[in-house]
């Protein structure tokens, strides 16, 4: 039996008593906890405020036509943002989404027009190529352990070069598509919905988000995507095969980029190797404004949808108010900074 206490023992016993009583919360604290609980509320609040503001200052802003026009304008970037969200949820980033999209649209167009491949088959090949581009990114990230930023910076350039090579830097004109491959323009077709004019591209975007919402929130795969993004070491120790999850995320992202490619042909009306040059960064913008943390594992998939719409609302509202285009960029820039600052603030709760 021990009668002379060990110095180690003494020290341990004099440890401070852990205090985990809750302090009274101020309104700011409560807001922080609320936003921590419901991270999508940040973009929702921003969207509502901007709708009100532009409704007051911009004439005709609230017409069904204008609101549906905004949806048409954000359909392609919104779809890309869905792909980007998946990758960012795993604490990665995909700089290649835009280049993949343009390259796939060229592949679909060229195969149909130049090589006489039946259009549905050309589309299937294009979708398959999307999976493969994602597979390449995923392989580099999981097997060679390259950081996603560098990996996709590299593949961005590679896909851009392939895009120029495959297209011969030539645009396939709208008339040619109408005559030979109208199916490629499917997602640009409009339909009326009580005064609103929507395209199938808008529907595609909404469907992609709905499916991802289901997969991320209602399936084991989704929970694992969040866990891998949150803390990969913990996820691995908890028995998750993190590489398989990452691989699947990049492949699904590639596939969604291919869907966006199909949608983009309808939106532009032609197949152009130089279109959507800034869509990479626009997709990241939508994700960040949508409240998905760049550090992974946090945020709702519906946020980026709202984020994309917010950017569309700002652009449309400022244009209708007769403001110079440069202020659209200016506003978007501030939105990004504020969104990231809010994310940092929310994340402080855990420390």
């Amino acid at each position: 039996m021990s009668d002379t206490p060990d110095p180690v023992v003494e020290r341990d016993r004099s440890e401070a008593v852990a205090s985990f009583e809750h302090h009274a919360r101020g309104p700011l604290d409560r807001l922080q906890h609320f936003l921590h609980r419901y991270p999508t509320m940040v973009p929702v609040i921003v969207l509502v405020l901007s709708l009100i503001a532009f409704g007051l200052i911009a004439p005709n802003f609230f017409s069904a036509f204008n609101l549906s026009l905004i949806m048409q304008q954000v359909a392609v970037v919104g779809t890309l943002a869905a792909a980007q969200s998946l990758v960012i949820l795993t604490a990665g980033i995909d700089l290649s989404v835009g280049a993949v999209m343009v390259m796939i649209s060229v592949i679909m167009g060229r195969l149909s027009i130049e090589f006489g491949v039946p259009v549905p088959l050309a589309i299937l090949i294009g979708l398959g190529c999307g999976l493969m581009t994602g597979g390449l990114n995923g392989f580099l990230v999981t097997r060679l352990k390259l950081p996603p930023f560098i990996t996709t910076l590299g593949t961005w350039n590679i896909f851009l070069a392939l895009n120029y090579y495959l297209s011969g830097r030539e645009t396939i004109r709208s008339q040619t598509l109408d005559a030979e491959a109208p199916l490629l323009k499917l997602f640009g077709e409009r339909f009326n919905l009580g005064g609103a004019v929507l395209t199938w591209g808008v529907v595609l975007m909404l469907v992609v988000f709905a499916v991802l919402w289901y997969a991320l929130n209602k399936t084991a795969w989704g929970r694992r995507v969040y866990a891998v993004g949150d803390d990969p070491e913990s996820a691995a120790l908890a028995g998750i095969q993190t590489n398989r999850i990452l691989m699947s995320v990049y492949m699904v992202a590639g596939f969604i980029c291919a869907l966006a490619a199909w949608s983009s042909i309808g939106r532009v009306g032609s197949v152009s190797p130089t279109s959507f040059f800034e869509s990479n960064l626009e997709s990241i913008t939508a994700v960040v404004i949508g409240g998905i943390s760049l550090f992974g594992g946090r945020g709702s998939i519906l946020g980026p949808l709202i984020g994309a719409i917010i950017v569309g609302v700002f652009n449309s509202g400022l244009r209708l108010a007769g403001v110079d285009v440069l202020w659209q960029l200016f506003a978007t820039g501030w939105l990004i900074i504020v969104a990231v600052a809010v994310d940092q603030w929310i994340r402080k709760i855990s420390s």
Partner: protein
Amino acid sequence: MTEPLLTARNLVKRYGRVTALDHADFDLYPGEILAVIGDNGAGKSSLIKAISGAVQPDEGEIRLDGKPVSFASPLDARKAGIETVYQTLALSPALSISDNMFMGREIRKEGIMGQWFGMLDKAKMDRFAREKLTELGLMTIQNIGQPVETLSGGQRQGVAVARAAAFGSRVIILDEPTAALGVKESRRVLDLILDVRSRGIPIVLISHNMPHVFEVADRVHIHRLGKRLAVIDPKEHSMSDAVAYMTGAKVPEGVAA
């Protein structure tokens, strides 16, 4: 004496020129709390990693229920019923308690939604998680959907232990469970450990905290220089003896110096 549940004989693990395990032995009996103590670098964690499947020993044999086993990964060990609560806890802070408890072994809904669309049975998982936490007296946690990062350190440890206890049918390994906790919270975790043992699940407790070890352990495995130096009964030895054995200042009776 009853047969040991989990044994290891002559485990050797080398990392380059460093020998982390030098013909180490290990025995765990059913229903006991076995503490593993040793100085830093004595090879404790290599021993535990070998048993939990995180590293593969170069030589030696591990037996569970008398049958030789070899674990290629922690998943294999887990399938055999050996659950480990790591010092880092391996919880995903942003996910809910329920999500964390079922991480990697989620329950799907029955029928078409579950089979074809992979829909999770959240109600069932929440119910199970709540049951397990209540059993271990941890239901001061009000909301099973609460993210783990909003819990206190002791509560997080509780969730990790509850996860292991819920699924670890054979053996639970706890790596420094009280290292990051204050006095009050350590108290609760120790009670939790005793509670888990009372369910008949043997526990391997790795700890630096001698009072904690001496309070709950049935036997104390002293690891020194890559092998088992001795197993002592905490009722017959003092804490300072244990520390002296651990550091080589004293040699326990019956061990050749």
